[in-house]
Structures are given as structure tokens and as C-alpha cells.
């Protein structure tokens, strides 16, 4: 397509002519060319958000298939399908149709399981993506809006998952619905009215599955789709952030063009995500509703838990003391209100407001397009780890009965471990992370000043032993390096600056010609000089210089604070 758009003369091929006709009418060549030439920086962590995007695509596709067969009705029927242990029981049409999808629809169980696994993956990848944004400071001006949209997407994904969890109307989801109903009722003043609005009367009524169905398949997906589009448009408009490195500034983007390199990678990742979800859907059973049985308010099972993304609220409920507040006038605020509504309210508000909070605290209102290494912002990193540890204690407490059962621990002990841990683990995590960040920073500075430890011990004439250090750049009269820290990884091992023979690169299979590497090594045997220019050549390609062929050219892999070093391996 791009080729036809740039052809100077009249196109000769049929494809070219068609393209010209289209361009004559729609005038798309210019914008298309600009889009296809857009440069994306290259780092593995930038692909995390894409995993979320692709899980969402899988959710839309599998979800659409499920709507062909799912009937969101709570009318009671007598089950007469293929699953013998439930035959003859009264159940809602919603549950019966879910059983039919699982046992009587061709491919139904696979699609249902893929849908559920993709849902778990969707939220998990959003969380991991968000952690990457947080720890690298990618939310700073001008990207606060996208951070807000991201938090909104996370919350919507939780609500979407919760409504989906509720729809099959099995015993597990019904128990979850009962808890949702109780949470709504616990809201002071408006609780009963809100419950009436949601359920159309007392629990459970006949409406809720139908209502949640519309919310699940129409309302929230539409909002999600719109917000994701906005998220991506803003990303394209503001350009992607990048890690600091040679040639990277606040005013450029170093990476690969959208077409073909980035598009190739993105397609590959889409297929990888699809493969993982399909493998899980086919090999690992998820939410076997036929084992749970139809919902009956008189029944409740041990270990009734929400899916993992809501489990932290289950955990907070289990840990919170039973502090009912009684007010005059026979009025009470149940203990449930605090851990299930107030706590997530505070957590998500803090999450949403974090960019503003940090801006206020640091006074940093400048625009940033270069990312920060977590160690360089120890306070933020420690706050993040503190929040993660807080969340993890809640998450584990959400499954504390299963942990107690499987590991032979007293459930009471688990509750108290959770209560005490919730208070003391986060501060410990903060202090530890802070010290680790400072330690890593100092080591970076030390290597820049004194060079890399070579492991070579030399004995001086007067008997003193010293370790020989390899400076990374020019040194002053005291032998101290003069390089300043640039926010990029500092090589810490001789191998990273060419101290060892060059290894053939490639994860599963070599991506370089072994003979070429061997020749280079032979050159290195004779002395470093002959190999140097060649190495420079392979690492200095910039897209701005006109799209070098992909062989070994990794313009995005930075991390060299000085010239003459070797590019970092991607995982460093």
C-alpha cells in the first residue's frame, strides 16, 4: 500500500491502479503514509499494554459467540440436558443455557473457558501494564489524562468481570451476587434505595441477570471500547515514552516504524496471546459451573470466592473487625461498608490522583518523554512497592481459608497474620525498597567513577593488593571517570563492554550468522581495533537515517553511557 502511494509516475499494476482510484476519492495516502512511518520505541515492557488490548479482542470475539447461546433469563425450568447429575432439577434458564453451552454446543465449553481465562488475563495485564507505567514515571505530564483513562479502564474491567461472574446463575455466582446485594445495602442512607434500583426489589428477584447481561455485553464493552480507542489515540498523539539512552532525547523517539517492524511484532504478540488463552481454555478447566450446581439462596459452599481481581476486597472483608455502628433511631452502619466500599474508594482515588499528588509534592510540572529508572525515584518506587505489598496481603487474605486448608494452618491464625501483616508489611516493604534503590544508585555512580571491577587482582611493589578497574570513559588525573549518570543502565560487567568473546544473539535460535560472529572473534583475537568500526556500524542505525535493514541493528537498545561500549542486552 505504502509503495503505491509513493510511486511517482502512474501505477502500472492492477493493485496500484485500484489504490490510486481509492486515493483519488478518499485522499488517504498522506495520512496513511504518516501513520505507517510512525516510530515506536522498542522495549519489552512496552508490550504489556498490548497484551491487555489483545485479551480484550479475544473477549469480544469469544463473548459474541457465547451470546448466540446464552439466555439471560431467571425463569425457572427443569433441566433436561446432557449432564446427568443435574437432570430433573429446577434451575434458571440462564444456568440451563450455560450448561448447554458447556455440554451441548459445539466448541461451547472451549469458548466459554477461553472467555473466562481471557477475562482473568485482561485484568492481570492491565495491572502489570499499570505497574510499568507507575514505576517508570510514564504518567507524568503530559500523560496524566491517559493515566486517568487507564484507571477508569481498570475499574470498568473489574465491574465487567464481576457482572460476567454473576451471569451463569450457578451457586458460586449466586453467592457472589448475594454479597454484592449486601454491599449495596450497607451504604448509609441510600443503601436500600440503591438496592431497589439495581435489583428492582428485594434480593434476588427475577431481573438482575437480565440487567447485568445488558451491562455486561453492551454498556461496559461499549465504554471500554471507546476509552481504549481514546487511550490509543492519545498515545499516538503524545507519542510513546522511551527509556533514556544514546541518541534519545525529550524531543525525539527512537525505535521501529509502525510498518513493517512494529506491525509484525504486534501481530506476533496477538497470536502469542491468542495461543496462550486458547491453550489455557483447552487444557485447564475454569469455573466448572456444572459442579457448582444451580443457585439456591439456602445453599452456600466453603471457599466461595470472587475471581482474583475482586479477591482483595474479599480479603479486606475477612480482615476487618466486626465494627457495626449503631446510631439512634434503630439505624446502623454495618461493618461491611468499610472494607468493601470505603477502602476501594480510597484506593482507587489515590491511584487516580497519584500524578497530581506527585506533581504537588515534587513541584515538577515539566513535560517528560523520557522514562525514569525505578531506582532513580526511590520514594515513588518505595510507595509503589508498599502499595503492592498492602494489596498482596489483602489478596492472600481473600483466599485465606484455602491457604489454611491446603497448608494446615489455623484459619484464625491466617486472619491474624493478615491483620497484623496489613499494618506492618507495607512499611517494611517501603524501607527495604528505599534502601535497595539507594544502593543500586550508588553502585551505578561507583562504577561510573571507578570503572568496572575486572576481577583481576594486582600486587603492587610494596605488597598492596588492588583490583584492576576498567574505566568506562576518559578519566581525570586521579583516575576517576568523568562520565555523568544519564538515567540509563550502566554496564557492570566486563562482558557488557566487550570483555568476553561475542556471543551469538538470539533467544531460541541465532539471529546472526555464526560465521560472521566467528570472523569478528578472530579479529578480536588479533586486537580489538579491527572489530570496533564494524560494531559501531551495527549499532548506530537510526530510523531517522532511513530505515536500515533489520540485521542485528538494534537502535533502540541503549544503555551505553559512552562511545566505544557494547550495546546492552535487552534484559539488563
Amino acid at each position, binding site marked *: 500500500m505504502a509503495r503505491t502511494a509513493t510511486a511517482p509516475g502512474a501505477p502500472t499494476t492492477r493493485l496500484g491502479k485500484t489504490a490510486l482510484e481509492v486515493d483519488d476519492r478518499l485522499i488517504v495516502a498522506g495520512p496513511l503514509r504518516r501513520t505507517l512511518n510512525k516510530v515506536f520505541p522498542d522495549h519489552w515492557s512496552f508490550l504489556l499494554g498490548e497484551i491487555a488490548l489483545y485479551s480484550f479482542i479475544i473477549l469480544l470475539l469469544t463473548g459474541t459467540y457465547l451470546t448466540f447461546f446464552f439466555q439471560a433469563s431467571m425463569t425457572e425450568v427443569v433441566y433436561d440436558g446432557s449432564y446427568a447429575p443435574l437432570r430433573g432439577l429446577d434451575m434458571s434458564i440462564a444456568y440451563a443455557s450455560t450448561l448447554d453451552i458447556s455440554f451441548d454446543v459445539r466448541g461451547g465449553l472451549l469458548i466459554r473457558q477461553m472467555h473466562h481465562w481471557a477475562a482473568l*488475563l485482561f485484568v*492481570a495485564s492491565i495491572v502489570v501494564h499499570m505497574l510499568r507505567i507507575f514505576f517508570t514515571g510514564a504518567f507524568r505530564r503530559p500523560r496524566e489524562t491517559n493515566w486517568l483513562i487507564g484507571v477508569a479502564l481498570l475499574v470498568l474491567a473489574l465491574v465487567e468481570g464481576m457482572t460476567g461472574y454473576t451471569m451463569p446463575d450457578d451457586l458460586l455466582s449466586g453467592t457472589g451476587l448475594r454479597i454484592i446485594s449486601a454491599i449495596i445495602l450497607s451504604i448509609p442512607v441510600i443503601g436500600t434505595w440503591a438496592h431497589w434500583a439495581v435489583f428492582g426489589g428485594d434480593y434476588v428477584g427475577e431481573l438482575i441477570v437480565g440487567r447485568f447481561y445488558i451491562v455486561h455485553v453492551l454498556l461496559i464493552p461499549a465504554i471500554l471500547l471507546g476509552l481504549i480507542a481514546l487511550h490509543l489515540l492519545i498515545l499516538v498523539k503524545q507519542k510513546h515514552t522511551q527509556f533514556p539512552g544514546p541518541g534519545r532525547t525529550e524531543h525525539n523517539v527512537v525505535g521501529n516504524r509502525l510498518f513493517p517492524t512494529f506491525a509484525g511484532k504486534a501481530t506476533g504478540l496477538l497470536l502469542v496471546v491468542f495461543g496462550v488463552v486458547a491453550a489455557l481454555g483447552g487444557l485447564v478447566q475454569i469455573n466448572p459451573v456444572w459442579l457448582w450446581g444451580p443457585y439456591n439462596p439456602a445453599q452456600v459452599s*466453603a*471457599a466461595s*470466592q470472587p475471581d*482474583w481481581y475482586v479477591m482483595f476486597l474479599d480479603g479486606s472483608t475477612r480482615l476487618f473487625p466486626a465494627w457495626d455502628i449503631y446510631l439512634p433511631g434503630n439505624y446502623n452502619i454495618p461493618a461491611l461498608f468499610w472494607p468493601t466500599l470505603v477502602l476501594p474508594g480510597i484506593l482507587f482515588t489515590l491511584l487516580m490522583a497519584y500524578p497530581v499528588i506527585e506533581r504537588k509534592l515534587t513541584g515538577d510540572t515539566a513535560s517528560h518523554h523520557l522514562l525514569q529508572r525505578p531506582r532513580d525515584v526511590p520514594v515513588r518506587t518505595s510507595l509503589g512497592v508498599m502499595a503492592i505489598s498492602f494489596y498482596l496481603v489483602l489478596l492472600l487474605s481473600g483466599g485465606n481459608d484455602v491457604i489454611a486448608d491446603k497448608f494446615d494452618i489455623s484459619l484464625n491464625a491466617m486472619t491474624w497474620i493478615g491483620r497484623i501483616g496489613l499494618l506492618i508489611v507495607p512499611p517494611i516493604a517501603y524501607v527495604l525498597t528505599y534502601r535497595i534503590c539507594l544502593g543500586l544508585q550508588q553502585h551505578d555512580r561507583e562504577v561510573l567513577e571507578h570503572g568496572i571491577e575486572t576481577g583481576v587482582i594486582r600486587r603492587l611493589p610494596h605488597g598492596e593488593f588492588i583490583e584492576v578497574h576498567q574505566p568506562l570513559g576518559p578519566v581525570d588525573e586521579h583516575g576517576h571517570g568523568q562520565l555523568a549518570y544519564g538515567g540509563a543502565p550502566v554496564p557492570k560487567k566486563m562482558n557488557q563492554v566487550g570483555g568476553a568473546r561475542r556471543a551469538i544473539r538470539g533467544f531460541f535460535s541465532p539471529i546472526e550468522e555464526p560465521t560472521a560472529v566467528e570472523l569478528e572473534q578472530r579479529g578480536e583475537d588479533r586486537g580489538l581495533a579491527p572489530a570496533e568500526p564494524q560494531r559501531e556500524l551495527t549499532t548506530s542505525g537510526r530510523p531517522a537515517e532511513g530505515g536500515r535493514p533489520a540485521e542485528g541493528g538494534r537502535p533502540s537498545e541503549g544503555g551505553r553511557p559512552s562511545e566505544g561500549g557494547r550495546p546492552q542486552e535487552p534484559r539488563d
Partner: protein
Amino acid sequence: MSTTNPQSDTQLDEGPRRSRWSRRPAEGTPAAAARARRRSRQRRRLANVAALMAGLVLTGALYSTLAPGAQAADEGSESSAEAAGRELYERSCISCHGENLEGVPNRGPSLIGVGEAAVYFQVHTGRMPLVRQEAQAPDKPAIFSDEEIDQLMAYVQANGGGPVLPSGDLRDGDLALGGELFRLNCASCHNFVGEGGALSSGKYAPSIEDANDLEIYSAMLSGPENMPVFGDNQLTAEEKRSIINYIQTITDMPDPGGAGIGRIGPVGEGLVIWLVGVSALLFGIFWMGSKA
């Protein structure tokens, strides 16, 4: 034994002997006195052994004359199985459940009236004999053979009565009804499909995956540990058989969706998505990151 016990020495040897010894040292040299002392020690030992033997023989004779007379009262009605059961009981159970099945405070409950159902469940699942006192008796390989369990059951049943084991096909019941009853009565502790779950203070509802029909039935009859008793007034015999039918059908059923991951619901699923799903994808993007 007695030679090492100075107290018994003095008690046995006091009296005329001492006066004899006290005379001897006066007769000779210190060496002779030492020799005499040694000889007297040997004699004392011999006397001790003889006294002990006499005591044992006397006790044995007394026992053989008195004990049969005390036992003769219920000897006539006790079958051979009960007698064998009594022997097993007195060897393995008596220290916690008492001489007459009346129980020992802080050690073991009374077994009067628990019936053979309780004995079958506790002994056949290996819960009894108990290894140590803890929150709950864990199941382990059974110590007694089936024959010995029958003997113990006969003994306990004969001394206080109680629920008896059922006979016939224990899965002879309606499958769907069994499922409904299971979810209503059992699932709140044993989980949706009998995987088990935690109770308070280290107690737990065990998994019933490996239980046989009779164990499940006898558990319902006897209410072991924290489990309530589901007597025939709560769940009729047909209903119990339906529940067993459901449990065993579900347990034997393969998981149509793939690996069952413990059938414990969202906790296992959450673990899998993070450890398998997210890890695999992180590995994938590392791999892509290493490609130009």
C-alpha cells in the same frame, strides 16, 4: 532390680542378720572384714531375687484365683469376636477411652452408645488410634485389618449399642437429589464437590474424594469430629444413598474442561492465570524483545 535399690536392701535385711554381721568383723583382720562384707552383699542379692520371685508367684496365684471369678459374669454372653475386640480395645484404645468405654477426661470421649458406625469410620479411615492430641484427628492408613475392625465394632456395639452399619448398595439413590442434598447439607464445609475446607482454629472438613461408600455413610451416621450427626430423621437412608451416589459419581467423573486444578474455584484459577498465563506471556515478550 532390687540390687540397685538401697531402700529395699535396708528393709529386707534389717533384724537378726545385722546382729550376725556386727559380730563378724570383730573376729578377724580388716581384710577378712572386707571379704565378709563382699560375701554378705552377694547373699543379700540372692535374698532379694528370692523375695521378688516369691512376690511374683504370689501375685500370679492371687490373680488366677480372683480374676476369673470377677470376669465370669459376662463371659457367657460374649462372642468370640467381641472377646477379640475387647483384647484389641484393651491394647490400643483403653488409655484414652477408659476401661469400660466411659472415656478419660481431656483425652478421649466415651464410646458408650456411639455404635459400630463410629468405630468403622474412625478406625477404617485410620483416624483412630490417634497419634497425638491436636486440633483434629487426621486420616492415615488404617492400623487394623478389616477383620480386627469387625471385632472392635462387635465389642463396642455390644457395650452400649448405637448406630449400626447399613447393608446393600449404598449408591442406590437419585443422583440429582443427592447433589441437591449435598449442596444443602455438606457443601458449606466440604466445598462444592467435597474437596474439603478450613474450619476455625486448625480444624477442617476433610476432602471426601478418597472415602469409600461405607465411610461416607458411617460419617453421616456418627458425626465424627466437628461434623453434625445426620441421623435417619434428618436424612433418610435413601437420601444418604443419594448423596453417596452423587459424591462418588462426581469424584469419578473426569473434568471435561481439562485439568481440574483442584476443583476449588477462583483461588486456583487466579494462581494459574498469574503463574502460567502471565508468566508465559512475559516470557513471550522477553523473547520478542530479544528479536530485532
